[in-house]
């Protein structure tokens, strides 16, 4: 019977998740007229609702404002405030500054990539973690450094990566998913 649900998923044109996206979006759009100058406010409100700007949503906004998709994509990538990929509930930032580099932060990053199955700039499928890199945290004495949700973890080792992740969520499950 598992087959059945698989079939239904692709077969039904709008899976439930997408349907609710559309509903939520329509609700937002209903308070606008469809004028060009409403673009930024709409994008802001959408981002607030969804945490980022999902691709189908960009298309919908484009249609609503009679603007090409590329225009909205251009705006979304121009302003730092907009995100095109969802961010995770937890954000991990790894330092790529010189001091950290010298102390082997590359191995830490590699370990995180392995554990989470994502590259810097990406978010895990379950939206638990986003992985980012930064230039220098200005705490070089503690290098190599990784910051998890604003908590600084200094003198990192690959072993520590696993225990930190374990304490936050269940990283092993992530790997399978």
């Amino acid at each position: 019977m598992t087959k059945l649900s698989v079939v239904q998923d692709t077969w039904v044109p709008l899976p439930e998740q997408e349907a609710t996206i559309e509903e939520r979006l329509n609700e937002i759009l209903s308070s606008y007229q469809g004028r060009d100058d409403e673009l930024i406010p709409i994008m802001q409100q959408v981002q607030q609702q969804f945490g980022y700007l999902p691709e189908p949503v960009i298309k919908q906004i484009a249609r609503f404002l009679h603007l090409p998709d590329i225009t909205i994509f251009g705006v979304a990538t121009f302003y730092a405030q907009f995100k095109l990929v969802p961010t995770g509930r937890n954000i991990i930032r790894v330092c790529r500054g010189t001091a950290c580099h010298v102390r082997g932060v590359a191995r830490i990053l590699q370990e995180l990539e392995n554990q989470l199955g994502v590259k810097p700039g990406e978010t895990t499928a379950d939206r638990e973690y986003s992985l980012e890199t930064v230039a220098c945290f200005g705490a070089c004495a503690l290098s190599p450094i990784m910051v998890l949700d604003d908590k600084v973890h200094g003198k990192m080792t690959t072993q520590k990566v696993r225990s930190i992740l374990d304490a936050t969520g269940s990283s092993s499950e992530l790997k399978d998913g």
Partner: protein
Amino acid sequence: MSTVIETIDEKRADTITVTINGKEVNIKKGVTVLEGALSAGIYIPTLCYDPDLTPYGACRLCVVEIDGMRGLVSSCTIPATEGMAVYTDTPRVNQSRCITMELIIANHHGDCLTCTKNQQCELLRIAQYLGMEQEHIDRLRKSTQVLPIDDSHPAFIRDPNKCILCGICVRACHEIASVDAIGLAFRGNSTKVTTAGDKPIIESICKSCGECIARCPTGALVPKYEKPPAKEVKTICPYCGVGCSLYLGVRDNTIVSVRGDPESSVNNGSLCVKGRWGYDFIAHPERLTTPLIRLDGVSRGAAHDGQVRDLFREATWDEALELVSKRLLEIKQTYGPDSLACLSSAKCTNEDNYVMQKFTRGVLGTNNIDHCARLCHASTIVGALAAFGQGAMSNSYDDLEKTNLFFVIGSNTTECHPIIGSIIKRRVRAGAAKLIVADPRSIELSEYATVDLHHQPGTDVALLNGLMQVIIRDGLEDKDFIQERTEGFEEMQRLVKEYTPEVVEETTGVPQSDIEAAAHLFGEADSACILYGMGITQHTTGTDNVKSVANLLMLTGNIGREGTGFSPLRGQNNVQGACDMGALPNVYPGYQKVDDPSVKAKFETAWGCELSDRPGLVATEVADAICRGDLKGLYVMGENPMLSEPYLEHTQRALEQIEFLVVQDIFLSETAWLADVVFPAAAFAEKDGTFTNTERRVQRIRQALQPPGEAKVDWQIISALAERMGKPFGFRSAADVMEEIASLTLIYGGIHLDRLEKGGLQWPCLDTSHPGTPFLHQGSFARGRGKLHAVDYTPPIESVSKNYPLVLTTGRLLEHWHTGTMSRRSRVLAELRPNGVAEMHPDDATKLGLLEHDLITLTSERGRLETTVHITEKSPPGVVFMPFHWREAPVNVLTNNALDPVAKIPEFKVSAINAVLAVLDRAAQDNAFLARLAENPVEALKEYELTTEERAAIATGDIRKVESWVGKLDERLKTWLILRLSQEKW
């Protein structure tokens, strides 16, 4: 176009005087400083300027000094004014340019030596102009950060590393193509030109028109297969009826480049995907190079696997011509001249068509000549002749640039007439015109429509009557025009009264409010054009539909003046010309009736032979006539009825049993495979002559290449045959043929090849001093008063039934052309759209348990085929759409050959069909249980006596059990069945 001779004074009023680098020059009023300088022959380097695009002012290379202005100014954005003093070449200017260039080059990665653009690279040219040294340039380059090259498109490469962000491509895509596939995205150093979502271009909405490629000043956008040509030949695109003018770049008898003709009033330098990339079919190895004769004893219908030698042997021209001449004469003698027929070709030149009809009439002695216009616009000619007395498009592209309202009905303009589609999109987007779209499907133009109507296929008359009812009800008709220029109003008014919005909503499915809105928009517009295509014509009511269109135009006075008009968009490059040339069974060139004694006498004198006054057979009656035994010999020039006729099985049966079949073509088309003799013909780029586009513009085509092998120009083949048959024509050149056409055809009276060197002429062009006619029906109609017809709605011949619950409608795609003979042999076009699909609405797919890309079987009363399904909301529920380009899934196997009673055009647009998952269809052939399930969506099992065990198996979807009584099932069928059974109602 204007014939007004401007006086010197007027000319002065149009120019201003400025001083450039100390020299006084006269330049046009209203231009920028840059344009003024360029027009005076003074070079100013530019990187972001393009004459066709709005100024951008981004590159800062065009800077100049102007007296009275502080600092350096970009000349591309500053309007030139009287008395201005401009300096384009001062040290300050050049220093600034050098700095700008250094910055640009620093961000421009790549190796100039290996760059394919290096010959035409603006960047290099300017660097040289400014005296920058190669070594210096190389030093400037950063070698870091290499962005990935986008190689996804079959025709061109995008290399962002060479992009200088001049924005020309982005503006071209927006302003010229009206597509907006690309734009600038990201910020600061990472800014780049990309698609929405930063995806490869092939996954974007790009239409492959190449407007961006043609303009990019650097090697960032380059065609994959282009070489610098040795010479360029100006000619006309061989695909659609828009008739774009272009230059073919030739080298070593091959086309190596193509560019739009910027001087052409038709396309202003633009081309669509076909016109830009679709030429390698000319050099395709399958081109016919010698005459072929069917091997003795090989039957017409003999199966083949593409091996020419299995069916044909090569022959000399002498032998092949002799054989054809002998057989045609024999048939004529035995069965009479009307046992022979010719199909002429809308792909061939006017000269080819003229000679073909002269041959048919003068040598064979019959009026049995027709061509594929029968399949596309026969109803236009009949309907418009009845309404106006003239069957052609009444207006010009120029009127489309001026109109306030476009009403597009039954035309997927952006796919089928792309350059006209761009005009519409551009003007609507700019707010310069409004748009009403009426189409059963959602088409690209629907997104631009002010009012978007989706009527049921075949209900056009009802819809148009509905609009007229509202217009008359609300007093929006043009009473003066009706009074002065038309007849039949009373009767028509009485009839359309019945078509109230309620009634029309019921028939067409269009909401009343939309009918009201469209009627008001149309009735209140200062000027309006109606553009239509096969959606109007390809019906058993095609003539009625056309008359209704004419009614609406005359009712509102939207014909015979600028910005208005009747625009049937003709499909083929020269379908207008083929009609004009009399490749029709009832008329000589210029629509002179064959049964008019004075006309007959005129042609008998001119051609020195006796002619028949019996109108001949139309193309769509040919198959029947063969089956009846009336038609014994058929000569087909450049047409492919074996894919293009409706109800193909019938066509095939006919062609297999005809006594003698000659096909003249550039490839062994599906029809040529059946022939007794095949003549190899020259392609458009291999001949001289003229094409007439949809706006009646007769344009010159020129020979760029030598035909392959022994292939010959069509009119020369026919002339050679005529000579064999004892009636030499004596034409020595295409110009000779045109002289004869002009002498016998009033509307072409002033057309001579040497007059067409600049831009062509629109007929009627009565004599050598006549400037041509941009729009028809000014002041009066050809028939005197325009006739308003009372046209009642009649439904299509076939309606959906239990066995055939879906409506099939056919059409075309942007990237391909008709039966694909040319476009599918063009690498780029074939790669862009390798195969066809049937489009179906998600609701129907759900009902049938279909998933995207399932192989499905379609059946109609007339045949069956298998194809892939594409599930999309573009098709309305209940309607399946299929293009007819694919011989692997020839949709005309299914289409209805029922004809319009007058125009004899078949009803391609409405056939009742059934659709079933292909594996199910096959399994159901010998399994009653599956057949039942396939047929009836919900309650099939009610009638079955099922045991409790069987019921349980079905209810739980236990496929193993089900298999135990229906036999082993295909995997896809299993998943289908599980779903299907879960929907079952007991």
